[in-house]
């Protein structure tokens, strides 16, 4: 898999050269993507989101879970 992430304004662009597809994501999803480095689990990613944004833990957990599922569905990460 050869996927690159670039910032554009307050959004992020993910480009998967294997499938020649590009995805746009908001800043939170971009943060979550950058944490998908094989060293952070979902709990640690949630902590990272809580450090960056003023949001309730439950909301952060739900956002992280949904975003990771979306990444898996798009085959951007392996579960």
């Amino acid at each position: 898999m050869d996927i690159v992430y670039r910032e554009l304004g307050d959004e992020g662009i993910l480009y998967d050269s294997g499938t020649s597809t590009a995805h746009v994501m908001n800043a939170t999803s971009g943060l979550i993507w950058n944490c998908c480095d094989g060293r952070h689990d979902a709990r640690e990613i949630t902590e990272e989101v809580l450090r960056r944004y003023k949001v309730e833990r439950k909301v952060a957990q739900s956002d992280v879970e949904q975003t990771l599922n979306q990444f898996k569905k798009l085959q951007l990460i392996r579960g």
Partner: protein
Amino acid sequence: MPLKSLMEIEQQECEPFGIKVHLKTNVKSLANSLSSLYADFPKENHRNPGDCSLDYSVLETENGHRGKSPFVIFEDKRQVYKTKDEEMLLPYLEWFINGALLKRLDHLYQIHTGMVSKNGTGMILPGPSGSGKTTLVIGLLKKGFRYLSDEISLIDPETLKIYPFPRSIFVSKKSAKVLSLSDHEANILIRERKYNIEVRANNGLVGDPVRAKYVIFPTYTRSSSRKPRLTAISKGTALIKILRSSLNFPSYGQKGIDTLIRFLEKTECFTLRMGDLKETVDLLSAHLEKH
């Protein structure tokens, strides 16, 4: 193949983007056609793709007497088109030459988009066929904008400037009525043909290479009574939409994404719901002047 007459074969040459194009023809209606079609194209090719030249022959033969198509177009000695209708020769010749030019300009990022400029500010109008690009481009020309293309924009990945590709614009006679194109207008050449109207920007109406500040995605709706509306969209959304209109993205890949990101960083992006043409053009003009 016997030629129809002993009329002298005229040789023509032009050099859009520094690429030599040669034409041999014995068809009178094509006299000086190359210099007319490509006079306003950029002269230089800032990254020489090598020693390339394009050779065309457009010939009228004696086949017409035998009920066959008398007019034939050759591209590099290969027959690519034949017709009984002399009026189709120029549009098809231009079509073949433009296609060959674009293949040789692959070092420029190519987007299916109209483009105009005003006071050095570029505006691109990407969209599929039928989205209203051509109509909008002509409307903007009538409002004093400069013409770069109704179909193709060429982005230099290094400077991010967009190079004009000012091909002829062909509009249906029905559209010409909407555009009020029945008469010659200053700096716009309007030529009525059998099937459509040919519009050409000339006399300095073609713009120079320019940086784009506005990226506008027009949408044509049948109901022209609706008010035109400009809606801001994010640059990420604009990037995805431009990718859908990109012509040579496969040969760019990752570099194409990086080029588009750099290109979009200094732009403002909108969707445009077109309404009455004059109101739509006024809306864009006013927006450009305000900002």
